């Protein structure tokens, strides 16, 4: 995707109400994450034994936790951790997913069969079990979440992307590229990946949302982010203890997580409409060469 196409896609997303909402939420997330790296209202370790379990007030907008630390500061710092986790998980999912797709498309029959079979067998393993298998020897860490999530989602991704990747792999232009001596890797990167990109991007943005949800669950269970590191899951787990002290404080961390996950899902939907030349007329004739190819693939898919 060249720069001009990206600009068109972004403005198309911005032009819908849901797309605008998702872009705004995601930018806020990014800004808060960057801000928290240099400044938070209170230091995360500034404990204050005289002001534990405080209700929200002007000096502590979201109250304080059991050791007197500021809840808002932890929530802000958590957005940076979650951003890191999501980025790592999405990248790892994309890499493993593409490798699986490549294996399924390979002309080596044994390998492609094996990939399909392995996906079928392992796809039903829950993330929390994979996370436990990793957390027992290595202890809770960010990597446990990243690897456990990527494990499940890359299998899912490969399964969803496969039919379309097969269509492209059987197309005349791939055949012609192969007969001109292009290597399998080159065909994958220059023909197959650009054609499945819309589907891939949508799945990856959904996966980003699910990673955040998984992080909150795993961290609460003590097998995700270590308790000394700020994260949204950590804030949520702290808020559980608030329930008897100040029930309304329970709302905030969960609301942040829900809004961000909704935004990521809406972004995925908006992205799907924006990058599909059939849905988005503005993409059809900007630079003839690339759009015609996607159009062709879309026609094949339609018929």
């Amino acid at each position, binding site marked *: 995707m060249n720069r001009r196409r990206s600009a068109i896609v972004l403005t198309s997303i911005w032009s819908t109400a849901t797309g605008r909402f998702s872009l705004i939420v995601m930018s806020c997330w990014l800004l808060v994450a960057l801000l928290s790296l240099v400044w938070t209202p209170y230091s995360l370790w500034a404990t204050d034994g005289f002001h534990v379990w405080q209700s929200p007030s002007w000096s502590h907008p979201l109250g304080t936790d059991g050791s007197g630390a500021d809840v808002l500061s932890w929530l802000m710092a958590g957005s940076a951790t979650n951003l890191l986790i999501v980025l790592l998980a999405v990248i790892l999912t994309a890499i493993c997913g593409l490798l699986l797709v490549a294996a399924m498309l390979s002309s080596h029959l044994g390998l492609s069969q094996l990939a399909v079979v392995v996906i*079928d067998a392992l796809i039903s393993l829950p993330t929390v079990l994979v996370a436990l298998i990793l957390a027992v020897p290595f202890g809770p860490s960010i990597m446990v979440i990243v690897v456990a999530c990527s494990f499940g989602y890359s299998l899912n991704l490969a399964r969803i992307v496969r039919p379309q990747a097969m269509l492209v792999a059987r197309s005349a232009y791939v055949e012609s590229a192969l007969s001109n001596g292009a290597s399998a890797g080159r065909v994958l990167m220059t023909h197959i990946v650009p054609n499945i990109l819309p589907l891939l991007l949508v799945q990856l943005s959904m996966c980003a949302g699910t990673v955040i949800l998984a992080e909150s669950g795993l961290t609460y269970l003590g097998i995700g982010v270590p308790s000394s590191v700020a994260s949204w899951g950590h804030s949520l787990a702290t808020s559980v203890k608030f329930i008897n002290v100040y029930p309304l404080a329970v709302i905030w961390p969960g609301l942040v997580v829900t809004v961000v*996950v909704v935004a990521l899902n809406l972004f995925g939907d908006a992205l799907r409409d924006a990058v599909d030349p059939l849905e988005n007329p503005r993409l059809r004739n900007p630079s003839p060469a690339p759009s015609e190819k996607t159009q062709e693939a879309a026609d094949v898919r339609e018929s």
Partner: protein
Amino acid sequence: MLAVVRRLLLFVAALFGMSLLVFAALRILPGDVASVMAGVNATPQRVEALREQLGLNRSIAEQYGSWLGGVLRGDFGTSLLTGRSISAQIGVRSQVTFPLIALGMLIALLIGIPAGCAGALATSRPARQSFRAISIIGGSIPALWGGLLLILLFGRGVGLIGILPSQGFPQQGWQNPLQAVMSLLLPAMTVGIIVAAGIMRYTRSALNEVMGSSFIDMGMACGMTRRQATLRIGLRIIAPQLVSVIGLTLAEMITGVVVVENLFALQGLGSMLITDVGNRDLLTVQSELFLLSAFFLTIGLVVDMLHQLIDPRLRAVKGGIQQ
């Protein structure tokens, strides 16, 4: 038939692979299992005794063989910390977890499928938008937070309409079924609502896709209304995919189930696993992890078989014309 045999072989291979993986996961610890279990302050004698007790002085292959042999005979050994039989523990804990999963799934299906159909059949723009909004927001709620909100709404003691118990499972277990179900209701609603959103979303988009197809046109040409054609023909067509999706959702739902068990103080398999990991009762963890993986691999197998069974199109292509 060949496909079924191949799938079964694959299942056995996956089980074997999981047993190796789980076993290896507990052996790649820095240091050895005994010193980890005994803790930092243990005397060398204590560690040595524990090594003896765990059979860690034998070779790796021997340890693996005796563990797997026990598992295959249904004997999981005894927990070194509590001294109780692991199989018995798992039996007791299952009485909470499996009903919870079943009740959650029931709630999810009862909400998800009708809501998905309604979303697909809605014709006005605001109605379609609100169905879409519900499915997206419902699927974006962390299980932990959903549970907390439900406690705040319905939990006895803290809730606005405090009618349901929110902590623990009755001591007598299932002897008093009503009480048992009541105590599982809030946790099951928590996981159910989240899963319902996913099922609703999928049902809606799959039905929307089918509605443009010639199957529906044919039904309507034969005199069905759009609604009848969608519900009778459309649902039948998407049924096989729906079964697969529900099976996969079950796997996704489990993180939520473990979280909810901890939040609502239910003594289920999930909370047992988390406690044992916390206590570093590693041999118990090893058996539990393997059993649970086996359970989910079985679910995957059943779903695949069911998919084959209810999709006539898969039977038709037996000749080898594959898509």
